[in-house]
């Protein structure tokens, strides 16, 4: 969409937020959500020349084209595929909170990779787009659902990617994302994890992640709570921010709550809810407030379509 009288962009990408890990599925499971960043290329520029306009989330930090993640990813993808790196003017309208565990940086990675193919006019298959996006991001659990949509299971061995898209969460199940007013950097959240885990904890996670995938595929939503139990990362990361542990344990007891988890590496907490979401969402924010942190929340659905491209008139 554009202002009346404004020039229609050449390409506009509507790229969804994602919630990764979903408890037991560390670096493996992820789901696209109905909250979006929009990236538009309004004009092409000479090779290597880039300009950016960022509005909304991150508008103070992300204006510099040289350090903009979309531009950096675009250049890397062009290099990977041997494409000429045409410059462009990029407009980013960001609604996804930055560094809160809702896959904001993954939207930039997916946009950069997708733009490389679009601008060069190359029809690159989804699997190859995702291989390069995962190579850049380092893990697949955000970028795969971000591009492909829905709920995805991904395996990445450092060079090759395999993924399966499961049925989307039904529309009468909601994902409440309670977002506290501070940032956790993925690197810090990874540093707190142990080098190794006891064998019984590894077995615990294999069985629970398997149960979660099977339950999801069969629509056994009653098993989400158990299937999302985790011993690899959440017990460590929930201590990184006030309210994390309490939301994991207390909110899951709510009668409308099917499951709770840390979204990505946090600090956003998610609850999968059946029924009215207001009371439960307010309770999640009250727990953050009790820990001295302001917060707000989103009530979202699973985005089945993933990244959507609109082409303007050249």
């Amino acid at each position, binding site marked *: 969409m554009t202002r009346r009288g404004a020039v229609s962009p050449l390409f506009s990408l509507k790229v969804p937020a994602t919630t990764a890990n979903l408890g037991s599925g560390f670096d493996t499971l992820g789901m696209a959500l109905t909250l979006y960043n929009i990236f538009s290329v309004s004009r092409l520029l000479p090779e290597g020349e880039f300009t950016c306009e960022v509005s909304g989330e991150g508008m103070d930090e992300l204006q510099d084209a040289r350090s903009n993640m979309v531009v950096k990813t675009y250049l890397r993808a062009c290099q990977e595929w041997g494409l000429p790196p045409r410059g462009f003017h990029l407009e980013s309208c960001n*609604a996804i909170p930055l560094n809160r565990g809702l896959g904001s940086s993954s939207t930039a990675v997916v946009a950069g990779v997708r733009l490389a193919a679009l601008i060069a006019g190359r029809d690159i298959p989804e699997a190859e787009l995702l291989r390069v996006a995962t190579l850049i991001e380092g893990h697949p659990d955000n970028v795969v659902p971000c591009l492909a949509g829905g709920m995805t299971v991904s395996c990445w061995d450092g060079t090759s990617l395999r993924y399966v898209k499961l049925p989307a969460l039904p529309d009468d199940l909601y994902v409440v994302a309670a977002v506290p007013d501070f940032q956790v950097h993925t690197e810090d959240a990874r540093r707190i994890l142990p080098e190794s885990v006891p064998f019984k904890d590894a077995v615990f996670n294999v069985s629970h992640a398997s149960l979660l995938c099977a339950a999801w595929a069969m629509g056994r939503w009653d098993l989400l709570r158990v299937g999302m139990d985790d011993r690899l990362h959440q017990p460590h990361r929930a201590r990184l921010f006030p309210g994390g542990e309490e939301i994991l344990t207390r909110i899951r007891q709510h009668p409308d709550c099917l499951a709770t988890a840390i979204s990505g590496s946090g600090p956003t907490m998610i609850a999968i809810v059946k029924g009215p979401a207001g009371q439960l969402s307010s309770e999640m924010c009250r727990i953050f407030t009790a820990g001295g942190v302001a917060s707000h929340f989103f009530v979202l659905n699973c985005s089945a379509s993933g990244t959507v491209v609109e082409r303007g008139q050249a």
Partner: protein
Amino acid sequence: MNSRVKIALDRDCIHAVLLGLPNVPGVAAGIFSALSERGVSVDMITQNTMRGGRSDLSFLLRRDRLEEVIPLCREISARAGAQGVSFATEVAAITVRMEVRTEARAAEMPRALAKIFSTLASAGANVEIINSTLSGGNGAQGPFPAESESPCIWVTVVCIVSLTRAEEGLTALREAFGVC
């Protein structure tokens, strides 16, 4: 400074933000028509200026209608082509209403506003959204002629603050303005 001041605290509001609405004619009309059809009361409407042809639109709703307004706002957001909708329930609105002499408005308004915000800051109440309006008085307000013969106007300032600091903010403002 001012002859009469009233201060009130509203703990029963929630704050909704429609994020990244397309900046085209008719969007706001569609949103407020939909809210009106459901009899939802809306207060303190604020539209942020953004680039890229999109803008955020926020407003206050009543807490007791939370379960009803969440799906309604989600539906409106999707229909209007917004990027999403967020809600904040841990907020409160502090309203300061003061009478200022029309002829002294230019000098007194900035002083009064500074006093409100510095008082809230010293009480640890960070102001997240500010809205101010003028009413009454015998002077023109923007393009509108004088509303009355009164030599005074009413200045109303609404501040959205965290629910946890709202009581401290209210007490500090009452002390600062000498309101019981």
